[in-house]
């Protein structure tokens, strides 16, 4: 499939803003959704609407099948077992839920340590800070270097006998750098430290196999990989999940309920209390099909061309600083966060918006990383496989115009 054919699958790409064709470069915040996902989403309300896992009637059975086959599809997508997939509302929900479940399982005792990468999204920082407050834990930071790469050499020195968990993103949402997660997992495991990977950006960009990475937990969102918003996943290794207590009580998460004693359903149902996102979860199936379709040589070449073009453009302008410049350029996804000398990120984003370009400005939910680089915010553009080189060129031209206006 060529790019034009791919673009035709995403209805919102035909959208106009301020009388101009929308150039959507905010894919790291949320991706656009293909027609196949939108159709499934609607079909779940117009054809399969009924509550899953409960009733015996035809529609409920079909809806349950839609839901559970999505679990199988997600499991296959990341190389996990079906019972290792817990559906959540998104990455943030997944991380918070894990923090509470580990706490209830008495996984941490006072004085234990959690190691968190400096480049993490707030969603992989704040739940652990909240837990640390409750349990008297210590948070340590795995720093990034000036290029934005995690300082792997510092990792062994940061791990102690008290380090129970290491939290790191597969790909930073600000720097667009693919982190060396296999190596991090290996080093952490040698120390007896479990690893949670935030796959919010990684799930859509990389073919991920949780078994070969060997991470203990993997969290990601549906809406950043073409599926419906309000969908997400927490993967956990079976033997770990089996030892974790429920997060919420109620609904179909039980085995039996009595006034004297209530017992819980096996994993993963134990973790899915209440009515689930019936319409959203089944969109994982067409979304995963889209992810696979878009992992072609042609798309890869297009993405490479965009990276090379923008790399040249940014380095030709001495006022522009790019954050996230890995030594190995193949570790960079087409996501660029920049600062422009003499032009505020908010001003740039507002002007670009009026030119039809959707970008992200601000702290990108990574305030500690902004502090690390001494900026109050950045301008981020993040590309998806449906974005073209022409759009990158148009962005560069408009950015230059915006800079000239602000100087």
């Amino acid at each position, binding site marked *: 499939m060529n790019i034009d054919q791919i673009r035709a699958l995403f209805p919102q790409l035909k959208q106009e803003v301020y009388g101009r064709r929308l150039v959507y470069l905010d894919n790291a915040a949320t991706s656009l959704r293909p027609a196949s996902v939108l159709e499934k989403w609607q079909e779940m309300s117009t054809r399969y609407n009924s509550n899953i896992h409960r009733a015996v009637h035809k529609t409920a059975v079909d809806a349950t099948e839609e839901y559970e086959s999505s679990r199988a599809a997600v499991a296959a997508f990341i190389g996990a077992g079906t019972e290792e997939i817990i559906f959540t509302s998104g990455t943030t929900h997944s991380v918070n839920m894990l923090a509470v479940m580990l706490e209830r399982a008495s996984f941490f005792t006072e004085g234990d340590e959690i190691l968190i990468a400096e480049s993490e999204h707030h969603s992989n920082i704040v739940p652990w800070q909240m837990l640390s407050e409750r349990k008297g834990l210590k948070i340590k930071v795995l720093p990034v270097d000036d290029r934005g790469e995690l300082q792997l050499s510092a990792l062994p020195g940061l791990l102690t006998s008290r380090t129970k968990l290491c939290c790191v993103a597969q790909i930073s949402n600000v720097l667009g750098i693919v982190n060396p997660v296999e190596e991090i997992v290996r080093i952490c495991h040698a120390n007896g430290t479990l690893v949670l990977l935030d796959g919010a950006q990684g799930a859509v960009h990389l073919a991920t196999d949780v078994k070969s990475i060997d991470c203990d937990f993997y969290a990601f969102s549906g809406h950043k990989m073409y599926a419906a918003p309000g969908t997400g996943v927490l993967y956990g290794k079976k033997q770990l999940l089996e030892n974790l207590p429920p997060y919420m009580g109620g609904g179909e998460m039980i085995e039996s309920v009595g006034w004297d004693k209530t017992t819980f359903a096996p994993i993963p149902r134990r973790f899915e209390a209440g009515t689930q996102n019936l319409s959203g979860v089944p969109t994982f199936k067409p979304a995963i099909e889209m992810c696979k379709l878009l992992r072609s040589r042609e798309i890869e070449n297009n993405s490479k061309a965009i990276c090379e073009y923008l790399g040249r453009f940014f380095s030709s302008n001495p006022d522009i600083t790019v954050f996230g410049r890995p030594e190995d350029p193949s570790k960079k996804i087409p996501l660029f966060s920049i600062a422009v000398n003499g032009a*505020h990120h*908010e001003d740039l984003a507002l002007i670009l918006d009026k030119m039809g370009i959707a970008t992200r400005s601000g702290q990108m939910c990574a305030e500690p990383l902004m502090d690390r680089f001494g900026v*109050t915010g950045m301008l981020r553009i993040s590309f998806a496989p449906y974005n073209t080189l022409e759009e990158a060129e148009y962005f560069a031209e408009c950015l230059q115009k915006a800079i000239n*206006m*602000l100087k």
Partner: protein
Amino acid sequence: MSTLEEAKAAIIDEFSMFDEWLDKYEYLIEMGKNLDVFPVELKTDDRLIKGCQSRVWLDTRFEDGKLFFRADSDAIITKGIISLLIQVYNGRTPAEINADSFDFVEKIGLKENLSPTRANGLTSMIETIRKEAEKHA
């Protein structure tokens, strides 16, 4: 000195001349550049409205029954809008400000600059002007 209503009307009139968004922004950038210098010593944390986007510093003074505002931002378009807010609300009595509907920023088509994103500096600035007026009413 014009009344609050007159100052508002003048700005709305001025903005009605812009057909193009970018002309509107050019104008705001110019206004931002010409905004009275905000004394560095006033850039304290208690005057800072810290948001995800631009930062806004606001200094308020109540004197002779009138409210006086000085403000600054690190973003120039926001600074331009600050300049408009000061033209309208600076040196007014609390009664005048309380009687106002605070809709002129929307009327000149800058609603997205006041989007309810986390701690939007400008939104907070308008909120502060309103609260100060209520406090001294």
